[in-house]
């Protein structure tokens, strides 16, 4: 027969201060873990949600990203006439040769960072279904005009509607603000690709983005590019291209687990202390329970359950702290550098249910680790000795 859980709950309530301190300690550990992981999650999310299944991005062979790639002007007609590319209503292929350049802009909060300036052709916006102009108008080709994503316009100087971005003799007027629904263009500034080529005196585009008719033609186009020795280009599904960049979030994830695991072990030591104190204060009580006929297993599980209650209470509180922190203190957008393109990526903290469950699991193991030894001490208490022990 088991000892009712009520017994354990009451014990936790009786020792308010100790219970409170232990629970708070575990809660903070879980909250720290959740904050770091939601940062990594937010960053990963940008890359995973970017890129459409049917889009193919064409870059030079071996270049890891657009910023390192180069596609010469005379290669473009060969690429956009490949079979399997979807056509617009006017019969032109849905393809956009593009140029990316890193602009070293000043952040509003101080310091500088590289922001991707993307020169797009007229099909550029059509190829990105989540693109939406929210303020102002589209740039006019040939007029040194740019449109800026909402995330960048909030984080960088001179990037608001009506402002002018200047670099020596270079000058671009901001005529519009756009939103790309949390995808990669949310960290970019867009302008007309031909204008950008002449502004930056480049002879080559960085990439060509294509919309394929279906998944089968996507595979065929990728294959056709790989086996065309004239081009020495490679095609990648746009989704795969962005997913390969999620490596940016790896150090943060690792840091989250690293800190989380070490801190959880530390917190479990604290829980163990609490449980040992509980057990030693109740030695006589435990002996009495044994005399009444409760088995060793019943007592062992009872104390493990008590430790788990303690830890899970901390876990739930920690999740609450995490939710509060992410939704209030960390609710704004933030940015870091994507080191595969060496440019700013704007993202928001994201606390997913999966992370919350991970936080609870963390606290569960903290409780298990902290409870098992004290519980076994309780279970193997010598009845006669314990009863004789003076309170």
């Amino acid at each position, binding site marked *: 027969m088991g000892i009712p859980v009520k017994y354990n709950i009451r014990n936790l309530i009786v020792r308010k201060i100790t219970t409170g301190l232990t629970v708070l300690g575990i809660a903070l550990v879980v909250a720290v873990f959740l904050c770091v992981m939601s940062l990594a999650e937010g960053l990963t999310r940008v890359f995973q949600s970017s890129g459409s299944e049917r889009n193919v991005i064409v870059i030079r062979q071996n270049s890891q990203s657009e910023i390192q790639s180069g596609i010469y002007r005379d290669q473009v007609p060969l690429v956009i006439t490949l079979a399997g590319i979807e056509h617009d209503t006017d019969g032109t292929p849905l393809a956009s040769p593009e140029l990316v350049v890193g602009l070293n802009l000043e952040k509003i909060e101080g310091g500088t960072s590289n922001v991707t300036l993307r020169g797009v052709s007229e099909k550029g916006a059509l190829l990105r279904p989540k693109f939406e102009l929210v303020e102002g108008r589209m740039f006019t080709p040939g007029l040194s005009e740019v449109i800026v994503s909402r995330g960048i316009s909030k984080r960088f100087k001179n990037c608001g509607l009506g402002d002018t971005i200047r670099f020596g003799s270079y000058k671009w007027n901001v005529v519009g603000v756009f939103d790309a629904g949390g995808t990669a263009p949310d960290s970019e500034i867009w302008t007309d690709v031909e204008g950008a080529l002449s502004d930056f005196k480049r002879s080559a585009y960085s990439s060509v983005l294509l919309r394929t008719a279906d998944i089968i033609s996507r595979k065929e186009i990728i294959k056709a590019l790989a086996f065309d020795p004239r081009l020495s280009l490679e095609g990648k599904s746009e989704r795969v291209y962005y997913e390969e960049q999620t490596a940016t979030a790896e150090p943060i994830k690792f840091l989250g687990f690293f800190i989380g695991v070490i801190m959880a072990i530390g*917190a479990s030591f604290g829980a163990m202390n609490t449980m040992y104190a509980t057990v030693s204060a109740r030695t006589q009580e435990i002996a009495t329970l044994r005399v009444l006929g409760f088995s060793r297993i019943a007592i062992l599980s009872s104390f493990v359950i008590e430790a788990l209650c303690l830890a899970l209470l901390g876990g739930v509180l920690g999740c609450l702290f995490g939710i509060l922190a992410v939704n209030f203190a960390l609710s704004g957008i933030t940015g870091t550098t994507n080191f595969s393109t060496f440019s700013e990526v704007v993202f928001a903290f994201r606390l997913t249910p999966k992370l919350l469950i991970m936080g609870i699991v963390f606290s569960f193991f903290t409780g298990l680790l902290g409870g098992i030894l004290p519980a076994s001490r309780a279970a193997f208490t010598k009845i006669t000795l314990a009863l004789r022990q003076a309170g």
Partner: protein
Amino acid sequence: MKFLSLILKNVFRKKTRTILTIGSIILPLLVICIMGSFLKALDAPDPAETKGMFRIVTRHKVGLTSDLPLSYAQRIRQLNGALGVTTFDWFGGVYIDNSARNFFARFAVEPETFLQVFDDARVTRGSIEDWMSDRAGALAGEDLMKKFGWKLGDQVVLVGDIYPVTLQLTIKAVYGVSYGGSDGLFFNRKYLEEALPSFEGTVGTIWIKCADADAANRLSNEIDQMFDNSPYPTKTESEKAFQMGFVSMLGNVKLLLTSLGVIIVLVIVLIAANTMALSARERVREIAVLRTLGYTRKMILMLILGESLILALTGGFLGLAIFIMGLKPLKISLMNTPISGFASAIMPFPEVILVGFGVSLFVGILSGIGPAIRASQRPITEGLRHMG
């Protein structure tokens, strides 16, 4: 200090508890030390202050992905106060594979002028003449040689990503620096020009060594003014400012790590305070007895506070000792993880050790003060009546 032995007896009365508490101080303290070293490493010392190196860097005003004409280096050379001028081009590329472990800095440079500007680096093996005599020769850092187990004369193959060429380099010379890491690989830009004619005549950054701080300031302005209305405007800044530019790209890493650190300190305080509360409660009656024996309230306060201080400081010293001794194995074990780039920067900085010590002192006082006051203020009669 005649009560020291009494305090020590109390500290070790419950051995399991003492060990667990010390353990729960050591682990978070280690985390704090590691995070503190990251922060410290990000904040690299100013070469102008530490070594009297007044170097400035000129790049395209638009950003690092835009190149400058190589002729700019010649024009800067003619300016008054430029003691040495050399060029840098980030090659990037892939060595073996794309993993973090095989990533290091690779630059195309001018061997003739390289050491004039970076005269804090000294050649430890091979010679600059060897390097210059072989167009495909390379100069590698001591740390890098050690990391990959390279020897003089070894071949290093880099597959280009920015530049569509594959380079076969031979290590001809090795350099070391007295402060900081030596983990770069440098090769002759002429080799890249031959392999890729379109590279000819362009340069990523131009590094200038100046006589003193005034010259550095004056030259920065002069250079930027000289090219301001050209098709390739420049931005010139000190070496320190240039490096801090990379740190600021990471975003608010500093704020993030610092706030995590504060929360972790709070966690240690909570755990230690819990232990002290447990010990003090178990000893309520005993403390009342001590009081009847003539111990003053102040002595009781000191006894309990002393106990928490000894606990925290023991944890602190052990934690710091483990941090310092375990640094090498830790660095090696982090080499293959996603944070390898940061791991190589971890060092036992004196500031970090000081912070670690401060944290344990803080924890000792904060965790003991509550239980100490409560225990010392409790009336004797109540204490004697207390049921453990």
